[in-house]
C-alpha cells in the first residue's frame, strides 16, 4: 500500500475519534531499605483524560515534571500505565500483553526530542527507516521502494539512504526520525518535543513539514511541548498540565484568548515575546517558588502552593476539571476567572 492510498483511507475518516485516554495514571515506585521495597511513589501522571480525532493536533503543554512526556510514552505503550485506559478506536491498549499489542503498535508511533540520541549511529538511514517494516514483516514486499517514498515524503534525497545519521544536521535527523515513524502508516503520531533541540530557522522547516504531512496524510498528532509559541502555531486543541494533572483544556483560541486557570495565565504571561514594543505593556504574573515534589503533591489543588488566589478550600478539595464560567472549556480551579493575558494582535503598532 503506498502512502497516498493509505492517506486517502484516513482522509475519509477525518474527525472520527482515534484515541481516548481515560483517567490514565503512572506512579513510579520509590524504592528504599534493604529489600528495595516500594516506600512511596512519584505520581508522574495522576488521572489524565483526553481524546484526539483523526487529522487533529492535541498539544500537551507544561513545564518539566508535569507528566506530559510520560503520558506520551504510555500512549505508545513504551510505559505500562499504573491505571486507566488507552482506548485506540475502542480497543484498550493499556492492559494488552506484548503479543496482543503487536498489530496495534504500527498504528501509533513516536518521534523523540533528541535527534542525536534517537538514531542508531551504526545503521544507515535506509536501515533505520526499514527497521519497523522488517519488525512487522512488511519489508520483503516492496520495502526498499517504501523507504525511498518515505525519504521523499519528509523532504530528503534518495541518495541520503546509504549514509549514516552522524552525517546529517539536527533538522535532517529529525526528518529521518519522522520518516521512521511514518514507515508503518500510523494514524497517530506522538511528537515528544520534536523541534525543541533545533535552531529557530531549522525549527520552522520541521514544523512546516509536520503540518504538511498532517494535511496530506490525515494524521492525528499528540504534540508534547513546553514551548507555548509553537503550541499556538500547531495545535487545534490544547491541554495544560501541572504536576501530573490537566488543569485546563480547550481549543487553541479558548486557551490563548480566554484562559481561566491561574496557572495557564501565569504561563502565558511569562513567555518573552520577540517584540520590544510590548516591553512593560504586558500583564506579567510572576509565580513565586518552584514546582512541588511529585512524590508528595500538595493536598487539594496541586497548584495552590504557587497560586496568588489560593484559599482554605483549595487545600481541602480537589478542583474538578469543569466549565464553571460558561466559556465552553473546562478548567480545574475553584475560583476561575477570565483573564486574557496576551496582547491582542497588532496592539503595539
Amino acid at each position, binding site marked *: 500500500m503506498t502512502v497516498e492510498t493509505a492517506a486517502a483511507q484516513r482522509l475519509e475518516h477525518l474527525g472520527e475519534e482515534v484515541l481516548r485516554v481515560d483517567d490514565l495514571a503512572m506512579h513510579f515506585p520509590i524504592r528504599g531499605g534493604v529489600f528495595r521495597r516500594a516506600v512511596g511513589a512519584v505520581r508522574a501522571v495522576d488521572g489524565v483524560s483526553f481524546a484526539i480525532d483523526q487529522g487533529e493536533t492535541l498539544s500537551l503543554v507544561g*513545564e*518539566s515534571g508535569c507528566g506530559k512526556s510520560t503520558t506520551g510514552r504510555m500512549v505508545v505503550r513504551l510505559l505500562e500505565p499504573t491505571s486507566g485506559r488507552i482506548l485506540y478506536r475502542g480497543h484498550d491498549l493499556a492492559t494488552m500483553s506484548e503479543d496482543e499489542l503487536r498489530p496495534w503498535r504500527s498504528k501509533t508511533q513516536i518521534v523523540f526530542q533528541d535527534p542525536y540520541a534517537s538514531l542508531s549511529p551504526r545503521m544507515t538511514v535506509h536501515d533505520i527507516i526499514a527497521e519497523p517494516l522488517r519488525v512487522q514483516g512488511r519489508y520483503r514486499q516492496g520495502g526498499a521502494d517504501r523507504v525511498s517514498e518515505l525519504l521523499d515524503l519528509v523532504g530528503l534525497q534518495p541518495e541520503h539512504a546509504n549514509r549514516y545519521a552522524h552525517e546529517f*544536521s539536527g*533538522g*535532517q535527523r529529525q526528518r529521518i526520525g519522522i520518516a521512521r515513524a511514518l514507515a508503518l502508516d500510523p494514524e497517530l503520531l506522538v511528537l515528544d518535543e520534536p523541534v525543541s533541540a533545533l*535552531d*529557530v*530557522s*531549522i*525549527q*520552522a*522547516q520541521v*514544523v*512546516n513539514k509536520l503540518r504538511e504531512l498532517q494535511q496530506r496524510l490525515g494524521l492525528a498528532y499528540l504534540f508534547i511541548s*513546553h514551548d*507555548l*509559541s*509553537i503550541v*499556538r*502555531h*500547531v495545535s487545534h486543541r490544547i491541554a495544560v498540565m501541572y504536576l501530573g494533572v490537566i488543569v485546563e483544556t480547550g481549543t487553541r483560541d479558548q486557551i*490563548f484568548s480566554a484562559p481561566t486557570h491561574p496557572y495557564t495565565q*501565569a*504561563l*502565558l*504571561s*511569562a*513567555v*518573552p*515575546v*520577540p*517584540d*520590544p*514594543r*510590548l*516591553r512593560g505593556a504586558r500583564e*506579567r504574573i*510572576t*509565580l*513565586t517558588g*518552584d*514546582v512541588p515534589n511529585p512524590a508528595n503533591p500538595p493536598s487539594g489543588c496541586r497548584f495552590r502552593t504557587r497560586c496568588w488566589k489560593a484559599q482554605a478550600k483549595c487545600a481541602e478539595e480537589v478542583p474538578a476539571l469543569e466549565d464553571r464560567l460558561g466559556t465552553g472549556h473546562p478548567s480545574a480551579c475553584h475560583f476561575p476567572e477570565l483573564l486574557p493575558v*496576551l*496582547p491582542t*494582535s*497588532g496592539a503595539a*503598532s
Partner: protein
Amino acid sequence: MENTEPLLVIDELAVEFRTDEGVVKAVDGASFTIDRGEIVGVVGESGSGKSVTAMSILGLVKSGRRAGGTIRFRGRDLGELAGKELRTIRGAEIAMIFQDPMTALNPVVTVGKQIVEALRLHDRKLSKDAARDRAIELLALVGMPDAAARFKQYPHEFSGGMRQRAMIAMAIANGPSLLIADEPTTALDVTIQAQVLDLLRVAQQETQAATLLITHDLGVVAELADRVVVMYAGRVVEQGDVTTVFTAPRHPYTVGLLESLPRLDRDVDELHPIPGSPPSLLAPPPGCPFHPRCPLARDRCRTERPELRVVGNGTAVHRTACHFAEELAAVPTEVTR
C-alpha cells in the same frame, strides 16, 4: 581616555579551533562595543560564534586560538594582560553568569562559603564576619527566601532556579562593571525563566553594570536588551537599538530569523523558514557567509564580503553587513507589520 571610549570594545576578533578535519573559524572578524550600564544582547544560532566571543573576553577559550583582533576593557587590551592581572579583573570587574549553574558552583562547598570566597579574594581587608553578612545580604537581594539558612546549604540542595539565583549573587558580589550572561535562562522552565529575567533586571539596576547577554532566544533579548548584535557564521551581520532591529531589520538573516518564529502574541498563518542550514565553519563560503541561503543573493555577494556599515537615518546607530540592505526596506514583511 576612559570617558571617551566605550566600556568594552571588541574589534575584528577572530578565534580558531584546530580539529582533525581542519581549522574551524568560530569567530571571524567580529566587532561591537558595550557602553557603561547598557544591556547588549548577542543573538545567533548554534555555531554563530556568540558564546566563543563572550568566553574570549575573559580568556576562557581553552582549546581555541586568538587569530586576530583586540578586546579592550576600560581602554586596556585584555589580550596583553598577564594571567595575574586578568585574574584580578575576572570575578571583580567582569563577572560571568553561566547557563548551567552546576558547572559554575563547587558541589562540595556550601553556597555561602563560595560567595564569601569570591568577596574576600578581591578584598583582602574584608573580615570573615563582614563577608558573611554581605553574602547573606546578596542572597536576600537575589530573592532567596530564608537567606541565612540557605547560606549554609550545598548547591545540590537548591532547585535549578535557586542555583541560578546563587550564581547571580556571586557574580554581582564584587560590584562588577560588566556582567556576561551566557544563555542564563535556557535551561529553565518558563515560569522560573521569568523570575530570573526579573532578577537580572534587578541585578543590573543594583550594580549599574553593563550586561552582555548571550542568547538564542529573541524573546529574551526583546524583553531585556537595549541594543542587539546579530551573529551568523562567526560574523556580526547586524547591530542596532533593539526596537529598530526587531521592527525594521536590515539584514536578510535577521528578517529570516524573525519570520521563522511562531508567535505567542499573534496568529501566524505560515512560518517562513530560512532554506538550507548554516555553513560549515571549516570552509565558510566566499563573500557573504549568508549568500547560499539568502533570497537577495547575487554575484557580488558570492565574491565580496560585506563589511558592517551604517544604514537608516534613525537616531541610534544601526549597522548591517549586507550589500543590498536598502532593498529590504521596501519589502513589506510579516515582521514589520
